[in-house]
């Protein structure tokens, strides 16, 4: 069983995924260093919005199954493995990224990083179920980029609902949006798996 689990981990390139998450975290540390965020905390927004985006993209590609047709003949239902796989990587990414801004007591510190990781992973997991794992990074990339570029001058009560990636950590509505996305995306992925890619007769 242990050997089977290791084969599963390698089939989903999990070791490389964890390394890529660590690389994303290292890039976030470098990015955060030169921002002089102590002058203006909002200078940290690019790191807090973009690092979770890259981490989610890395996690999304690990949901790809190269032999989907054979995997469907597995004796045990897949949902249990998916329910371990996705939350484990999400937790790993959230911890790594939160650590990159640890000690920055700003509104865009570790808590905002965790919230954005959860929301981005939720979007990516949902996209993997609907579009396939290889393209799962695309919707979250488009969404977060659009929010980042378009929310600067937005006003209104609904802004925290859709512009959650650029809200301060204390903004509760943004947390609700991110958690709803995580739960919905995870549920969709766990129930359906990544959408099969390639030919079907």
């Amino acid at each position, binding site marked *: *069983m*242990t*050997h*089977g689990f290791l*084969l*599963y981990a*390698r*089939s989903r*390139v999990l070791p490389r995924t964890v390394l890529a998450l660590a690389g994303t975290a290292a890039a976030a540390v470098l990015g955060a260093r030169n921002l002089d965020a102590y002058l203006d905390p909002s200078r940290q927004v690019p790191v807090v919005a973009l690092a979770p985006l890259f981490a989610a993209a890395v996690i999304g590609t690990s949901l790809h199954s*190269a*032999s*989907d*047709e*054979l*995997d*469907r*003949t*597995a*004796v*045990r239902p897949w949902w249990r493995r998916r329910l371990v796989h996705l939350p484990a990587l999400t937790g790993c990414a959230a911890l790594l990224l939160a650590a990159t801004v640890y000690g920055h007591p700003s509104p865009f510190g570790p808590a905002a990083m965790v919230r954005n990781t959860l929301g981005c992973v939720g979007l990516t997991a949902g996209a993997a179920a609907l579009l396939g794992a290889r393209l799962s990074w695309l919707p979250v990339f488009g969404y977060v980029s659009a929010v980042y570029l378009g929310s600067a001058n937005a006003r209104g009560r609904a802004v925290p609902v859709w512009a959650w990636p650029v809200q301060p950590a204390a903004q509760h509505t943004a947390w609700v949006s991110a958690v709803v996305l995580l739960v919905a995306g995870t549920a969709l992925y766990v129930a359906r798996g990544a959408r099969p890619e*390639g*030919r079907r*007769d």
Partner: protein
Amino acid sequence: MSPVSHLASRPSPGEPAAAVRTAGLRVRHRRTVALDSVDLDFGPGVHGLLGPNGAGKTSLIRVLATVAEPSGGRVEILGHDIRDHRRRGEVRRGLGYLPQDFGYYPGFTVREFVAYVAWLKEMPADGVPAAVERAVARVGLADRIDAKVRRLSGGMIRRVGIAQAVVNEPPVLLLDEPTAGLDPEQRVEFRELLRELGVSSTVIVSTHLVEDVAAACTEVTLVDAGRVAYRGTPPSLAALGESEGGPGDHPIERGYTAALRAHRASAPGGALR
């Protein structure tokens, strides 16, 4: 209990045991009907599944492999109705499946890939290493067992696909175009393996190659436009070709074209698409 003895423990009284049975099977893909009212039963032996492209062969194999859902009718494998999700695990333990395009994990060696499938089938872990070596040896790849799958030629990858399908010594083996990409010598060896497997297992092989059917199959089923057009043995299909005079260069080929024409003539509205 081995899978083979599992099959042997379920004889149907008064008739040969049918490991696979379909009744009124219907499969739809969006708006097209891939299979319609298909009643078939397959017992131990090698069953050739012939038919034109798009006839529904792959749809039938995928439903039997439990990877596609039928839209109607009943499918029974090893005595279990496959719609019963609680018994699906039991059915899948006894299935071997080679899809047309099986995909493989790029970092895996042959040994790892076949072991991965053994793990999917929940084979007892202590028996897996020996079962993997046996399956790989059966397809003649023992000397490449630790090579990366992605470094193998197309024919070798096909043989890896066959090895993963037989690793659990399944009582029901479903092979979709197994000889595509094999060279003539490999095909001869593969037919030998098929005959060997057909002694104890129910092997269903979809193919376009009539030589494979003539040489290795005990029964032949011809599918056209989602319906069963002909069932018989390779000699009876060849005899049909000789008596009806269908075009072709091989007796089975003549039988194939004659049976298809007869089926189409008897069901002018039979084309489902």
